[in-house]
């Protein structure tokens, strides 16, 4: 199955077993997808004001991608028991709680009472909170706090198997581990819904296309044998190498609905709607930090230059959450940067939904309208792979915004 977008994952269950062909009609397609959106359930949508002259910020992240999947091993370094918890690719936010649960389990097995957490991105924070909840006294040692970490340069939505591993390199055993992490995370996130400031929320995500969506879903991956593969070149070479596990948890992830013509408010021929969990960075980050402090957590600003620096720490157990920095700090050359860029426009609290169209995604969040060109060059999962240019690319931002802007330039809001 070809995954054209970041969010189509939740669709997977509905189309498993469908044949690789286009559907002739909406009823036929909706039957294959599961169902058509109930008439009258598409609310009146306020258009998104997507213009490059509205940019307030451009953020660039480097997803810490490891072909074998995230590193969650235990090793002895500098007299410490070090539990690694890094390398979650484009799935760090989504898998954070589940991965933290596993890492803290390793720490718990030491029977120590104090633990050090290295790093304060989303993996470090959730590891620290999970350790507190397991009874540890926790100190976070970090160079930067959350607003400055790479974590908040993500798009902030539920993408649990986005560049998480290569199928072959991770091996069949990782699929089960992934499922445990994803389920645990999803359930933990639900606890943060409905709170003041909406740290965690849902958006209706409209996947739009000028051509039948199912054709994109079911087109075989185009693999160029001349390019080889990770196994032959040491780097991923095509989208088909990337692992997709989403169908394993389709029993708890809302499925997509097809929008029939009369209900489709967008100026495109094909549309579907999928509820999407999102993370509002500001509210959520402040909440997690507050929880950590309230539970007696301590934060020490400190930069480590070598694993041997750990020897100075008073704690004997360390949960290591450096993210992409592990490539240098821990000399983990298996980490491959996958560049991603998001543009931020002023918040539109009257237009709380999400759209993806022609390789660009828009999510209207509490802290701004996020626009990301995630696949504007037809590279699929290979987009940004190996690119460590962590600097804003204004032209790329304007191109992505233009895709969304063009969509809404043709948008005709319906009356009530």
């Amino acid at each position, binding site marked *: 199955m070809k995954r054209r977008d970041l969010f189509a994952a939740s669709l997977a269950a509905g189309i498993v077993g469908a044949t690789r062909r286009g559907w002739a009609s909406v009823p036929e397609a909706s039957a294959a997808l599961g169902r058509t959106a109930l008439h009258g359930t598409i609310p009146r949508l306020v258009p998104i004001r997507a213009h490059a002259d509205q940019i307030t910020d451009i953020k660039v992240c480097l997803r810490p991608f490891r072909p074998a*999947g995230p590193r969650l091993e*235990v*090793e*002895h370094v500098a007299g410490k*028991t070090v539990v*690694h918890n890094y390398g979650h690719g484009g799935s760090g936010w989504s898998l954070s709680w589940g991965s933290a649960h596993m890492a803290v389990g*390793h720490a718990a097995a030491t*029977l*120590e009472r104090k633990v050090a957490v290295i790093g304060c991105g989303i993996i470090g924070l959730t590891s620290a909170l999970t350790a507190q909840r397991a009874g540890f006294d926790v100190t976070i040692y970090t160079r930067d706090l959350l607003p400055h970490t790479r974590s908040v340069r993500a798009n902030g939505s539920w993408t649990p198997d986005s560049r998480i591993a290569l199928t072959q390199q991770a091996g069949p055993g990782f699929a089960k581990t992934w499922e445990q992490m994803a389920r645990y995370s999803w359930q933990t996130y639900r606890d943060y819904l409905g709170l003041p400031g909406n740290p965690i929320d849902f958006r209706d995500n409209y996947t739009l296309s000028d051509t039948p969506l199912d054709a994109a879903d079911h087109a075989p991956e185009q693999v160029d044998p001349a390019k080889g593969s990770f196994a032959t070149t040491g780097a991923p070479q095509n989208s088909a190498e990337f692992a997709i596990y989403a169908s394993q948890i389709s029993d708890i992830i809302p499925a997509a609905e097809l929008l029939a013509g009369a209900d489709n408010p967008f100026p495109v021929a094909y549309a579907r709607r999928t509820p999407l969990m999102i993370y509002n960075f500001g509210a959520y980050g402040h909440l997690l930090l507050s929880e950590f402090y309230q539970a007696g957590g301590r934060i020490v600003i400190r930069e480590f230059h070598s694993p041997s620096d750990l020897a100075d720490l008073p704690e004997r157990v360390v949960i290591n959450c450096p993210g992409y920095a592990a490539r240098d700090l821990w000399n983990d050359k298996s980490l491959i940067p996958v560049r991603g860029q998001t543009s931020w426009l002023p918040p539109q609290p009257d237009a709380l939904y999400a759209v993806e169209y022609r390789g660009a995604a828009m999510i209207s969040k509490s802290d701004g309208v996020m626009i990301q060109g995630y696949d504007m060059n037809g590279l699929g999962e290979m987009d940004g792979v190996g690119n460590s240019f962590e600097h804003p690319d204004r032209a790329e931002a304007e191109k992505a915004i233009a895709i969304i802007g063009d969509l809404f330039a043709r948008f005709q809001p319906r009356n009530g």
Partner: protein
Amino acid sequence: MMTFFLSPLPHLRAATALMVCTLAGLAPASAAWAAPYTATHASNRGNNGPSVTFSAEQVTHGAQIYAGACAMCHGADLEGGHDVPDLGNYFMARWANTPLDRLAGYITHAMPLMAPGTLPPQDTAALVAFVLHHNGVTATSNTPLPMEEARQAKIRIPAPQALAAAPASKP
């Protein structure tokens, strides 16, 4: 986070010092990358009474009982979940150094949750053997884990010997 067993917490939190690491070929079944410590539990010989023994037959029988009575909630790999206690690292940390009869008694009285009191002593003993084995505890001999409470009370559940002999992993 999780609501753990309503059982007595381990009294002794300090890791037991003298541990003989028997890295026998009893690796847990989990995937290697995320595996719990591979069989680095000590046999607690000479520490707090007799060492843990269980037979291979008990492990096999325990696996069958587990699959039928326990796996529905605790998971096929003893991994637990968001609302269910694991029977892996967290479990071993909570029960470390506790007299074994308390664990066997708890299982007997309280498990399985939908039908407590239905497991005969030989099944309970087999379950304990299976869970310890799954967590890397090695038996010092093939002598079956006793079913009698008084004999179980003399045995303490080994503390996880975190990685004393685990090979350093390379990235």
